[in-house]
């Protein structure tokens, strides 16, 4: 909590109370927002998912200072991995597999989440290893190319062996099931019935908070300090005895991990994945979240992710009716306007507030050394 409100640092009791208040608000939020329709709860669930993604990208861009424009590829890896391991697609297309698993593939998330994390980390290392020697702007282009390659493979790997089902994508993906409770059906708790969207919101919230804790711990660790040292000056960091190559690889791998898990959750939530969801634009949206909120500052990144994730929903409910009222038809679609605003926001933020909406406090201003944990 202190991380969000530095003034609470000397007052642990107030910090604990604040934590409880925030927790209660987050738990009650879907019931309040749900009054306006489940679409809003859905937007909240996505916001939690994007918080995970943005925190992951923040490790790479914010801490280690490596501009990664292909981050969504890790999301795609996680999503397709879950899709393949929890849908009838593989058993339908490969009779040998169908013979081995007569009931089809249905894997619990306890298996799938670590697998998704591990696989994404592996891809992170695969991408990181060849490009580590490169300076920032080269790195950006190579990662962008990597993201495109993954997408090209997803689109084309439907022949001669149908692995990804091409542009149509994979359908009939199992929903998340925890302890026999399927998230696809409303859960009756006796006093209240939770619709499927609410369940996913809570699940993603838990995962986002877990990511948050991991990030805070990373930031204050030896590794986190090493990343920031590299970001500021990698020659100096090397002179201080940091193994620049390994530490950069770890940034890629750990950043990718978050993307992989978020991807797996995305595909369970949607029940459907296709290459369309993993375009360059998605990478840029996640980057916009990190940059808008404040590069390298966790509260800022979370703010950015929530703002940009809920924003399209807000836009959809304002722009379309306003245009219909004014012109009779929809001239500028909400989706188009959103991209326009994101683009302008990226430029404006860099020009006028390069540290983001909620920047990290300056060293030595206001606060002494950071507490060990938030």
């Amino acid at each position, binding site marked *: 909590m202190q991380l969000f409100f530095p003034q609470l640092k000397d007052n642990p009791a107030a910090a604990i109370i604040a934590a409880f208040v925030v927790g209660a608000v987050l738990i009650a939020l879907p019931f309040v927002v749900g009054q306006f329709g489940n679409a809003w709860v859905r937007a909240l669930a996505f916001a939690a998912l994007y918080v995970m993604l943005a925190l992951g990208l923040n490790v790479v861009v914010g801490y280690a200072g490596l501009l990664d424009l292909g981050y969504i590829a890790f999301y795609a890896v996680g999503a397709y991995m879950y899709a393949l391991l929890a849908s009838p697609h593989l058993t339908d297309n490969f009779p040998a597999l169908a013979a081995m698993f007569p009931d089809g593939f249905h894997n619990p998330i306890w298996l799938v989440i670590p697998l998704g994390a591990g696989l994404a980390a592996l891809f992170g290392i695969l991408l990181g290893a060849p490009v580590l*020697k490169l300076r920032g702007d080269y790195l*950006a282009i190579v990662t962008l190319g990597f993201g*495109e390659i993954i997408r090209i493979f997803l689109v084309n790997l439907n022949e001669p062996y149908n692995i990804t089902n091409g542009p149509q994508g994979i359908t009939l993906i199992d929903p998340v099931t925890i302890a026999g409770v399927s998230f696809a059906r409303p859960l009756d708790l006796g006093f209240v019935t939770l619709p499927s969207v609410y369940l996913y919101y809570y699940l993603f919230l838990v995962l986002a908070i877990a990511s948050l804790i991991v990030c805070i711990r990373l930031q204050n660790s030896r590794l986190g300090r090493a990343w920031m040292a590299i970001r500021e000056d990698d020659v100096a960091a090397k002179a201080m005895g940091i193994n620049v190559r390994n530490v950069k690889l770890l940034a890629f791998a750990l950043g990718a991990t978050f993307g992989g898990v978020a991807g797996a959750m995305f595909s369970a939530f949607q029940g459907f994945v296709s290459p369309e969801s993993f375009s360059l634009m998605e990478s840029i949206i996640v980057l916009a979240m990190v940059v808008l909120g404040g590069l390298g500052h966790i509260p800022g990144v979370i703010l950015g992710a929530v703002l940009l994730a809920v924003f399209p929903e807000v836009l959809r409910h304002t722009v379309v009716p306003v245009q219909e009222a004014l012109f009779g038809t929809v001239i500028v679609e909400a989706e188009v306007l959103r991209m326009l605003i994101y683009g302008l926001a990226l430029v404006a933020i860099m020009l006028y507030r390069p540290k983001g909406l909620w920047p990290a406090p300056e060293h030595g201003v206001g606060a002494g050394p950071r507490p060990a944990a938030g």
Partner: protein
Amino acid sequence: MDTFIQQVINGLVLGSLYSLIALGYTMVYGILNLINFAHGDVLMVGALTALTVILFLMANFPELPGWLLLILGTAVAIPVCIAVSLVIERVAYRPLRNAPRLAPLITAIGVSIVLQTLAMLIWGRNYMTFPELLPTDPIVIGGATITVTKLLVIALSALIMIGLMLLVNRSRLGRAMRATAENPRVAGLMGVNPNYVIALTFAIGAALAAVAGVMIAASYSVAHFHMGFMPGLKAFTAAVLGGIGNIPGAMIGGLLLGLIEALGAGYIGQLTGGVLGSHYQDVFAFIVLCAVLIFRPSGLLGERVADRA
């Protein structure tokens, strides 16, 4: 053998286009050490502007010959692109000249999105057909065919590149450009106005991009708001391959990349026994990019080492 010649011709056409676009990247990078991410979108603006002009003229003056339409379209597209590019430079890059490296790159991405979205609003999100303005009868060379448009692409690119080499190496302006690339501050002390030279570099790059955009649209008969992305990326690869910041390097890199792609796409089916098809064409550029950056980050002709502490 016929396939080989055909793919070499295709590669040369593709390569000439990449070279033209790569020049825009490489000149800007040579002076500012900045990847002008929006360069591909300037190309798209050029192609769509020309298309609009051509369609307008065709509707109002149907008696005009095709080649004149093409020239008029390009003549309008070039100043439009230059204007767009200068505005981008002024608004998004100049204020950040002394900022950390990440900052102008991020604004460049923002500008790229804005341009694409605006183009989508103006021209719609559908593919637009670029009319066939030049004779479409194929010319047969040694068993392979080429259209007049594509022949023109190769010839015109070669001419433009020779002109550019002369401009940079022989003229007073070129000397100012080279001096600014070497060291903007000292060039300023020697009486060069760096801001003017930088703006001019963007303008030349934009003009080349406009020509390339029209030629891409004309040779593939299609234009849409997203058409600048892939050529932009490939051309950047070409610039890196040749040694970024190096003008002859961009030309050679572009041609080489075009040939690699065309031959790769032509033969990948045979080489892999039909497992991978020509739709993996786009992957080649990135493999080349990664390979160059790993083994020779300064590119084929670049003399500077990529890492400057």
